[in-house]
């Protein structure tokens, strides 16, 4: 059994309080980091092999190293806590149960990149999380882990919590910056990348909650320890949020690279009622679904990419044999259609067209050629959108059609589901 690292304390009573955190070795990594050279810290994070847990899997240390060293330029850290991918609830657990772990990770990151101000952009619906963070930040100030001249190190840091207003697009890092600056959340043109021109036009690092929560552990236990967990190219512990037709849905912390089968059958207790698995979304609804024959795929960035899908946020959504894939695909697509920001043509118009066709297919009004039309539209959108939202939407749909084409065709031809008992 893997010894939890990030979730180590979440079941301890009052885990969100600073006393609990300090009693369990909290803020030791920050103290240690303050004595280290910032380049050393960045190198450690690079060496640890930590890759962004928001979904893109970019090397965190490398991202930090892009920030200019000039001390006269203000820099910012933004924590992306706009956890909105359906099926995902990993960051929420950290925020609500162990907020100091995040704050410590942020403090180390800010020290490393030279940021004196950091923002936590938290999903608006996370009211409890925002309160817990506010409280935790207050505690950290009072204990001297935030504020001016922290622990006599000459390093000062303020952290602010900013609540979102309910748009999935704010999880896209540049849209997040726009929203944080008070504008309509639309993604920005890259380049320039946020590391050069980010928040308020200044160099900015944007990291996911889980990513930042890994940082104190890397400082405490060393880069090579971290790198030794899981596959060499994407190491470390990973939170998997398992949901759907399993006996024990929940959040599991396992080494990267744990096979999907093990997650579903060993940890999540297998499929309810011992039914057969039909499809599984490995990393949040943007990730194309996998089927039974793919279950031995190791759950890490590269192995899933090789299968044409992605690790994403590590949200595992399990669907059993009774699931109508057409309906599932429609529900997923409705989400993207609803959340498209409307900035670029293919996402705004493409997803709107797709949803219209999908609805009629699902509701037994499909026409001959609709499946080909859907695939054509997926092709029109894919790779041409401004940001990855549209890509995610059509990848998910294309994955469903490619794996279950006969079900879609059945819907068109017979005006009903192929699966008995679907919809339950």
């Amino acid at each position, binding site marked *: 059994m893997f010894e939890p690292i990030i979730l180590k304390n979440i079941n301890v009573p009052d885990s969100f309080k600073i006393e609990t955190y300090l009693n369990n070795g909290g803020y030791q990594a920050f103290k240690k980091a303050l004595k280290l050279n910032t380049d050393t810290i960045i190198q450690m994070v690079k060496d640890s092999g930590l890759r962004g847990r928001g979904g893109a899997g970019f090397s965190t240390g490398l991202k930090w190293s892009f920030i200019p060293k000039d001390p006269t330029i203000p820099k910012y850290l933004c924590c992306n806590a706009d956890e909105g991918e359906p099926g995902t609830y990993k960051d929420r657990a950290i925020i609500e149960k162990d907020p100091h772990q995040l704050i410590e990770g942020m403090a180390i990151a800010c020290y490393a990149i030279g940021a004196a101000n950091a923002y936590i952009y938290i999903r608006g619906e996370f009211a409890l999380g925002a309160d817990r963070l506010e409280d935790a930040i207050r505690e950290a100030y009072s204990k001297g882990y935030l504020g001016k001249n922290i622990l006599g190190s000459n390093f000062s840091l303020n952290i602010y919590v900013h609540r979102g207003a309910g*748009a999935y*697009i704010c999880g896209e890092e540049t849209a997040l910056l726009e929203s944080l600056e008070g504008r*309509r959340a639309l993604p920005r*043109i890259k380049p320039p990348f946020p590391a050069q021109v980010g928040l308020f036009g200044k160099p900015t690092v944007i990291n996911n909650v889980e990513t930042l929560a890994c940082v104190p552990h890397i400082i405490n236990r060393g880069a090579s320890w971290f790198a030794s967990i899981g596959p060499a190219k994407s190491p470390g512990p990973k939170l998997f949020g398992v949901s759907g037709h399993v006996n024990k849905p929940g959040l599991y912390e396992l080494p990267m690279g744990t096979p999907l089968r093990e997650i579903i059958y060993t940890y999540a207790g297998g499929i309810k009622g011992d039914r057969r698995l039909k499809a599984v979304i490995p990393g949040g609804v943007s990730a194309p679904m996998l089927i039974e024959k793919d279950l031995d795929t190791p759950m890490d960035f590269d192995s899933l990419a090789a299968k044409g899908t992605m690790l994403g946020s590590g949200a595992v959504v399990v669907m059993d044999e009774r699931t109508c894939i057409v309906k599932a695909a429609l529900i997923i697509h409705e989400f993207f259609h609803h959340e498209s920001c*409307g*900035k670029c043509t*293919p996402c705004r118009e493409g997803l709107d*067209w797709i949803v219209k066709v999908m609805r009629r297919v699902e509701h037994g009004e499909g026409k001959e050629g609709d499946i080909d039309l859907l695939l054509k539209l997926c092709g*029109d959108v894919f790779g*041409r959108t401004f940001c990855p939202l549209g890509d995610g939407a059509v990848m998910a749909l294309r994955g469903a059609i490619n794996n279950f084409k006969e079900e879609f065709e059945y819907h068109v031809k017979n005006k009903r589901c192929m699966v008995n008992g679907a919809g339950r």
Partner: protein
Amino acid sequence: MATVKINGKEITVEDGTLILEAAKGAGFDIPTMCYHARLSKLASCRVCLVEIVGQKKLQPSCVTPVMHGMEVLTESPVVKSARSSMIELLLANHPLDCPVCDKGGECELQDVTFKFGPRNSPFGERKRRFHEEDYILSPVIIQNINRCIQCKRCVRICDEVVGASVLGSIERGAKTGETSFVKEYLDCDHCGNCIEVCPVGSLMSRPYRYQSRPWDLKGVDTVCTYCGTGCQLTVQARNGEILRVISKPDKGINNETLCARGRFGYSFINSHERFVTPMIRKGGTLEPVPWNEALKAIKDGLTEAMKDGRKTGGIASGRLSNEELYLFQKLMRGVFKTNNIDSGSRWNTGAVKSFANVMELNKGGISVYDALNADTLFIIGSSISDENPITDYLIRRLSRNKKMNIIIASPRGLKLDSSATLSLRHRPAAEGDILGGIAKVIYDKNMDKLKDLTGKEHLKNISRENIPDLTWTDWSSIESVSGFMLSANSITIAVGNDVLRGPSRIESMHILAEALRLLGKDVKLFPVFDRANQRGAWEMGVHPDILPGYSFRDGDGLGSEGIIDAASRGEVGALYVVGEDIVSDFPDGGFVREALRQVKFLIVQDIFLTETAKMAHVVLPGASFVEKDGTFTNQEGRVQRLRKFIEPQGDAKADWEIIASIGEAVEPSFHYGSVSDIFKEIKGAVPMYRGIDFEGLDGNGAIVKGSGIGGQGAGVVAGFSLRPKSEVRSQEQETPDPEYPFILITGNHLYHSGRLSLKADTLRDILPEAVVEMNEEDAKAMGVSKGDKVKVKGDRYEATLTAHINKRSVRGVVFIPENFTDVPVNMFFTKGKGFPRVKVLPLSSLSPQGRGPG
């Protein structure tokens, strides 16, 4: 430089060139929808996607710069298919109601579809509809959001150029719509630039709605005659009826932008109120006569009126062409043998001479783009956002992504304040003291380097102690401005003609410029005029002491005020007024009316029967700006062509023809056949114009060069008084009267210019009646809210007006535009006394509590 291959063709371009531009240079047309050269980049329509060899994803060519060695494909099968599918997606929800869409025939979506788009589409779903009926956004804008393709050009131009920021998006995703706030909050410039940049028929012009198809219109590129900015515009007509004015991206300093006046202020041309035959006063009424009779009456009238050695005089408008103004002064000086001439009647004639001198107008023109290429821009003496809207737009646009400090000094709050680093609010007529204060700080800090500063003795009268009284501005603000100037390498001082309304210490301008130059700064002086050809009027010599080409003299000729004074004493036999309504303009309405009654023979030439024309013995119908040829010189010193497009209405004639025929009636050798003949003569008389090729003037015009006339070098003419003989101080500077707590200032409104714009229906719809603008705190103290009726009362006139609130204006000042016939603001003024003091009386008897929400 970067060498790239586009569709196999090698081309070398500047580093950083966008693929879109490089491809255009190589001869390949990439369609775009959201791209606009002068707006921020969006890259959202994805129509311009291209293939870069070696890159997996297609890239938007409108934001991707070329890199050396890059290979770009703009016509590959994958690009063509992506392009056509983007157009297909844009069309999916587009209503395709082209037959009833005003944009049909000049629609960018139609054009790209025709050229690149799919020929058919499987789309068969219900289209998105936001609303069934088109939606009125303002008196000039009507919207159909169903047609919108989300390019956001309208939002960007409103925000980045116009600065009104009244457009924005609502909802998101497929439901996104571009619109404005609810009507009540629509604080819009009514400039219609959103209409101009809209690629489809989403934002449409209300006056042009359902009027014509673009291919049925004939048009001419000409110059706007409303203000000194000198925008290029295209007037379009069908069957001789002017139907709209548009701007063109590749024409003029204004490119695609125009203001409300330029874009919607044309309908006076076809106004039925124009008088179109000469008229002679017979038995108390003006009666139509043929031209020969009118000319004979003029010849006889002049002879009669000038008996007994009475004076003659002439006042011409700063909105006539150079040719007309040149001919006018030549007629007055050569035929009528008088130097009693002036342009306009609002200003102190002596101050004009000093202004022209200290602003170094004889140095030649300066492009607004050069003027705005400065570290610090200081704007004073102009309500620039209202009087010169496009200059305001240019400043906002060009300063947007640039390190440039904009400092504004003005009694009124201006829209441009939001782009300014620092805004000073000062008491009216204190411009000279402000400039002097700045010069004083700079002098005190650099005394060693400024030992030889000419005019430094003038600075003695300005001190930290008296600045607050003189200017209502504190010394520290003056110091801040000085700081911005001292830290800059290049400084542009833009001075508007408001300094002529209450002139004081005009020499300070020169002292400040000289001090900065002695400190090694690059100083540019940029005049800002509210009349389109004010600069031309002076360059042509329409001033008693300025001969053509800024040849200054100290003669005994009278300016407007002198002429009106003399008239009041019965000394003026004949007065010739062209295009100027002095009864409405001269700052003492009662006095000028009385004075004109004493003039034996008054000739007025205009296109409407103005208050002045109504008093005339002979009125002559001139032509509107589209009915005649000529040139205008804008505030930059840029000479641009005015082009005749339609024949003058009725018996009306081009003003130059009328002036020439009056001359010829008296002196047969005074004969001119064409505008180009006159221009040829101007080139001889005014060396600044020598290099200008009349026939060759295109959309960019040509900027006049320095004169170097009569052995005088360009620049300030030494030994010549920098300060007018008499300066008009405002009344309040004597003893403030608690009975009349406000100083009344005047000028042009954003939607009106002079009196002509009142005859344009659309502009009158936007602002039908005069308003009084006051500071928010002042209004609050009186319980006055926006839209309330108030009575403004001076010692000799009172008027009831609608209150407007300007949050940023200085307290203790009210502003009434000078454009309205029913509220002749000049009636408040007393000749020689400067800005009048008034009180404001709220008309509502309701207590503030009983009032509805403001």
